[in-house]
């Protein structure tokens, strides 16, 4: 058995080598550092028509907003699946066991929680101006909300029902902002509201609103996911 295993190990290695060689020669055939920027150039030439100082945000929420909707849905589907898979009797929470360390964590979480949430919202609301945005800020908020759980104070902050409502509402907000454009006789997910002045906090039309929805949704979803991963021990009885 083991000898068989060893001889079999060469096939994947050979394949990997071949794949690496193929990819390397293919990518080296393209001049590096001189992208064609067919689409990127067009976006550059629009000179900030969406009013977002960060062009990546303009792409994520404007030009390719459907991708972002899909991405939100993927996180949503993943966290729903995790909930579905790990549903069962709630048992002990995984937390920092050592008492002194637990104390430290508790203190830290009390101090850090508001700070992290503030930082998270700052990143979200400035997503159209500076690097960062809904996803990054959302992750920070999720980790902040998860800290108390890690410090062993249970899921006090993480009321599942509330989180689900916030999450569902934020997701609906994203879609409804798109549908609102539709109702005004424009395209689905078309940015609206005045563009404003590039670089101002209140600018870029609906983009900051979209990022806010993304941030809240991501934050709520990931927080729910983390608690699921840390608390629910699956019920002992096995179906059939």
């Amino acid at each position, binding site marked *: 058995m083991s000898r068989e295993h060893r001889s079999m190990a060469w096939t994947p290695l050979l394949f990997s080598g071949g794949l690496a060689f193929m990819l390397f020669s293919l990518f080296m055939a393209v001049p590096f550092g*001189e992208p064609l920027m067919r689409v990127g150039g067009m976006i550059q030439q629009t000179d900030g028509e969406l009013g977002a100082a960060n062009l990546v945000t303009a792409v994520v929420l404007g030009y390719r907003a459907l991708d972002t909707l899909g991405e939100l849905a993927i996180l949503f589907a993943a966290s729903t699946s995790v909930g579905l898979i790990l549903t069962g009797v709630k048992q002990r929470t995984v937390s920092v066991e050592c008492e002194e360390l637990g104390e430290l964590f508790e203190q830290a979480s009390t101090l850090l929680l508001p700070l992290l949430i503030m930082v998270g919202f700052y990143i979200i609301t400035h997503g159209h101006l500076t690097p960062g945005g809904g996803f990054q800020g959302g992750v920070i908020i999720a980790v902040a909300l998860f800290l108390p759980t890690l410090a062993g104070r249970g899921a006090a902050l993480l009321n599942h029902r509330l989180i689900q409502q916030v999450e569902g509402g934020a997701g609906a907000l994203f879609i409804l902002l798109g549908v609102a454009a539709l109702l005004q006789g424009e395209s689905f997910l078309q940015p609206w509201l005045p563009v404003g002045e590039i670089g101002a906090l209140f600018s870029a039309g609906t983009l900051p609103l979209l990022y806010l929805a993304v941030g809240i949704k991501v934050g709520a979803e990931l927080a729910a996911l983390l608690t699921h991963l840390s608390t629910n021990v699956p019920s002992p009885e096995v179906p059939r």
Partner: protein
Amino acid sequence: MTLAIILYTGAIGLLVIGLAGVVMSSHLFRMLLGLVIAEAGANLLLILAGYRWGGAAPIWQAGQFPTTMVDPVPQAMVLTAIVIGVGVQALAIALLIRHRHYSGTLQRTGGLNQLQADLDREAGVRHTRSSDAPTLNPLTEVEHVH
């Protein structure tokens, strides 16, 4: 040119190390780590596709957009890909937790044998009964192993 070689080697290396890790690991958790590594490599590849010599980040600076800037589109794609990756990863962890809970093992081969036996039992295949089945059936052997 040297930079291109270094960066592409890095990206493709990560991708291939990751894929080989998925295929060759004998432990399910390591297989997942392999996938995470491979994704990192693919993301780097995408970013490299949009890099421009001397380009600035695609952000409004000092009252205008930079005249030479890196391509923002691959960056947006990588943002999407990273988030997708972490979602899939969390789902995989949940599956592993459930699987370990049922079977008690995270080894690849042990899990596989058990899987085949489970599938046979659930399908109601009883090998004593199928006297008319072709003897080539590999499933029969699995049953014996168990």
